[in-house]
């Protein structure tokens, strides 16, 4: 009974919060968060290299910092028609809401694919150019996963993951100079090597995160010079 009275008092105390004005989704051009900073950094690097006369292969801008992708597309890089259709349909699984409430998907160019790695389970990891909101798509064919983003000195890795109660797959790209990537999954510390800008982990199933709590934490890039760059410096990872 006392608790019910206290509950009522709490509801009364906090009732003014109903007057708090909400916020709305904004257009990507207005975005101020850290996600656009890697895009800017990549653009600056690409422009600087162009000025100094470095040859820019097709797709270089999107693939800056990813040497293994900086070559003309070969037949091995090309997506199967089914995968190309998947990429064209799904984009990278994100987008934004326009001012008039329409969903604008971020799209990946299926014709720009470069194969980086084939996982032990046969899944292929590709990088592709994105439509303009982020420089890069990574695609894990087989798992049917794609994500957009960029890699630079402050965020040297970009990954996608498929976690279920049966198995866990985590795969991503790392910028030039990254030798290994470490992370925690299901309470375990894992370190995987980077080869040709690609890295991957396959492990046992983990509980899913219905509540939004992170399953994979403390993702950290370890560079050849001995330094490390955590994805989220505020995370407690010791």
């Amino acid at each position: 009974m006392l608790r019910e009275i206290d509950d009522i008092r709490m509801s009364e105390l906090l009732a003014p919060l109903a007057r708090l004005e909400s916020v709305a989704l904004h257009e990507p051009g207005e975005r101020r968060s850290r996600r656009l900073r890697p895009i800017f950094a990549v653009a600056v690097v690409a422009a600087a290299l162009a000025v100094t006369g470095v040859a820019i292969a097709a797709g270089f801008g999107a693939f800056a910092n990813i040497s293994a992708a900086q070559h003309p597309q070969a037949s091995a890089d090309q997506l199967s028609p089914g995968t190309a259709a998947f990429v064209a349909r799904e984009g990278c699984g994100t987008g934004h809401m326009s001012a008039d409430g329409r969903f604008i998907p971020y799209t990946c160019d299926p014709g720009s694919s470069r194969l980086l790695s084939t996982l032990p389970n046969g899944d292929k990891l590709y990088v592709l150019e994105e439509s303009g909101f982020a420089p890069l798509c990574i695609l894990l064919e087989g798992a049917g996963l794609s994500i957009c983003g960029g890699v630079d000195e402050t965020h040297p890795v970009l990954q996608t993951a498929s976690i279920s109660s049966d198995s866990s797959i985590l795969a991503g790209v790392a910028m030039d100079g990254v030798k290994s990537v470490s992370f925690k999954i299901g309470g375990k510390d894992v370190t995987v090597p980077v080869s040709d800008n690609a890295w991957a982990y396959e492990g046992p199933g983990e509980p899913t995160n219905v509540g939004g709590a992170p399953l994979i934490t403390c993702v950290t890039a370890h560079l050849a010079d001995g330094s490390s760059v955590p994805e989220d410096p505020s995370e407690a990872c010791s």
Partner: protein
Amino acid sequence: MAADSAVEELFRAHAQEVGRYLVAMVRDRSLAEDLLQDTFCDALRAREQLRHVENERAWLYGIARHRALRALRRGRRLHRALVRLAGSREVAVESDEALVALLDLLERELDPESRALVLLRYVHGFRAAELAEMTGLSPEAVRQRLARGRARLLATTSTEGKKEE
């Protein structure tokens, strides 16, 4: 694309209240906007989960809660520096004095995790069992944290009320 549509529908239905929750949590309108955007993107990325989720609204709030707590952890040092430099609250979002006082009270008396729980329980109407699923805590642990937060807030407001008398 059906899953995309489901996330869109869910977001359209709840973006307003989730936005209000984020503003109350971080007290910075531009950061709350970014966090709302992040919440939407996270929901889209995890859209396959939605087929197995019983309580879609709780699922969406769970993502927003995680985003807000993560941003608060990241921003705490910067915020302290801002307050020192400005000598006042730089991030107050309202001119309504009662509302500002209430947000000050919540921020002063409750740590971010407890504040998230109290707001979700008493402003957004989630039950302890739903909060347990959102946070990974047991329902009993949620009840205990809520009880501690409730006692602290009510004791403080009671003391302040007596002082004013």
